[in-house]
């Protein structure tokens, strides 16, 4: 097992390095921020001078080596647009993304799992027929559309919730609902499948034959046994939430990392983009790692063969 873990750790480091290299090269290929920084009337000579000052005229391998060297010194570099250390810029955004993602996760888990259980237990009844459409809607609506509709309805029309920004606790409600919609559907479906599978197993029939009531069966036995796949998916869904946050943060002017990422890519603020990609890919790799371990725990065949890959 230890050898497997070490091997996966080494592979994860390689994966992150691969991601960094790809993003680095791809971004450099698309130009540099100098033209965006200067006033329109700057001459070619002035632009070239600033470019040289900022170091963007060096060959890409040289820039990459320089970047790796700054990383080794645990320095994330300086933003060329904001002229501040990148760690400071990114660190300010992390609480907001965390707040949004965790609220969205709470909503999607808090609604998704009960819905999934209900549609599995009361399969074929009115309950399922009423709830499944809700799940499907969550899966089928583009987040930016649901976002704007929510703003129009609850923000402008009814005035219950703030139309944008992140000032108060109420600000997170609409973005979290918009973001959590797709995840909620996924959780509901996974839970439903998992519970349905458990309910069909022999031990359930045995317990029911002993006379234990249905709700007890569901809560104490089925959920406990069926939890592993749900937790596995949860790890991956967190990753998806981080990704989906990009659009939601733009629509709701939410000052998180997704919004920072889009703005930095558009401004070619390389250092910030690279730092965000580094953080997110580390998070992804860790979450994938966790999911794989849990997955291996479900299916012994995979574990015995030395891992899912």
């Amino acid at each position, binding site marked *: 097992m230890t050898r497997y873990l070490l091997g996966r750790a080494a*592979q994860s480091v390689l994966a992150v390095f*691969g991601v960094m290299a790809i993003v680095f090269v791809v971004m450099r290929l698309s130009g540099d921020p100098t033209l965006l920084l200067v006033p329109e009337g700057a001459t070619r000579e002035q632009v070239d001078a600033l470019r040289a000052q900022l170091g963007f005229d060096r060959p890409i391998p040289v820039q990459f080596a320089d970047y790796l060297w700054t990383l080794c010194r645990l320095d994330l570099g300086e933003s060329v647009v904001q002229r501040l250390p990148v760690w400071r810029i990114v660190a300010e955004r992390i609480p907001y993304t965390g707040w949004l993602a965790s609220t969205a996760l709470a909503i999607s888990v808090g609604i998704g799992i009960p819905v999934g259980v209900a549609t599995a237990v009361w399969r074929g009844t009115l309950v399922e027929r009423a709830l499944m459409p809700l799940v499907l809607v969550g*899966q089928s609506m583009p987040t930016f559309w649901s976002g704007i509709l929510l703003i*129009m309805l609850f923000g402008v029309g009814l005035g219950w919730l703030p139309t944008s920004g992140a000032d108060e606790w109420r600000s997170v409600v609409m973005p979290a609902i918009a973001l959590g919609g797709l995840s909620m559907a996924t959780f509901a479906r996974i839970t439903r*499948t998992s519970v349905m599978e458990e309910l069909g197993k022999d031990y359930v029939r045995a317990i029911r034959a002993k006379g234990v009531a249905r709700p007890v069966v569901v809560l104490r036995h089925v959920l406990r046994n069926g939890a592993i796949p749900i937790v596995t998916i949860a790890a991956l869904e967190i990753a998806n939430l981080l990704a989906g946050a990009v659009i939601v943060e733009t629509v709701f002017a939410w000052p998180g990392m997704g919004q920072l990422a889009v703005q930095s*890519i558009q401004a070619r603020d390389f250092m910030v983009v690279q730092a965000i990609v580094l953080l997110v890919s580390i998070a*992804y790799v860790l979450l994938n790692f966790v999911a794989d371990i849990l997955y291996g725990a479900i299916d012994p065949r995979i574990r015995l063969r030395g891992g899912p890959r």
Partner: protein
Amino acid sequence: MRFLRSALAAPGAAAVAPFAVLLLLFALVALLAPWIAPLDPARQSLLARLRPPGTTMGAATFWLGTDELGRDLLSRILHGARASLAVALLSVAVSGTLGTLLGVVAGYRRGWVEVAIMRAVDVMLSIPAILLAIITVAVLGPGFLNLVLVLGFTRWPRYTRVAYAQTLGQAGLPYVTAARLAGARAPRLLLRHVLPNIAAPLVVVATLEFGLMILFEAGLSFLGLGIQPPMASWGSIMSTGRNYVGTAWWIATFPGICLFLLVLSVNICGDHLRDRFDPRAALR
């Protein structure tokens, strides 16, 4: 064929049928758009901007109203079906083919080929899809073809994972050993024997990816990176219509409804297929 018949015979097929019909309808509309659209979708009329549904000007009736440049919304939506469906279909085709191929090869060959491919899968899955799409479009530029390429080359790992696991499962089975002993060479073996047996879960993945690709295209168009005007896609129409929700609500609403119905139908049919063929695919 076998596949289709078992899909149709499954319980619950009756409930799914209307959505399957809806899907076929969308496909038909997309194919026949140039012939059934009442007006030229690219024809602007600066004096007929932002008119509500049902407006008639001169000889033309704008059944669903006009957009911010005076173009007929109905015609644009009909043509938009082509773009949205084409992007989704082509990107699924590209990523599905590439992903399946790599997964099957990795599962069959094992060794360093397997390690290399699955590590590549790791790397690809470590980058948030939307960030990768934005960065790639920054280099390649937006547009239909580049969008298909971007989506096609970022989604293949999903197929690879499934194809790999499935191939691993199949490789140990007697029929494979028998075929090999009979002298079948690897490509023939994989194509004619293994592939049909692992097709079902892959089709399930493809169906769900199809719905996701439609949403992705809409999302990328929202960020200005998708289909470019004057070509229309539902996502790009909604992207501009978003600014007019308070005033010219029809621009974003009608394509939104179509988009929603299309993705809904795809998801329902995909669910049905999944329930029928591979209930445990939900766990991956």
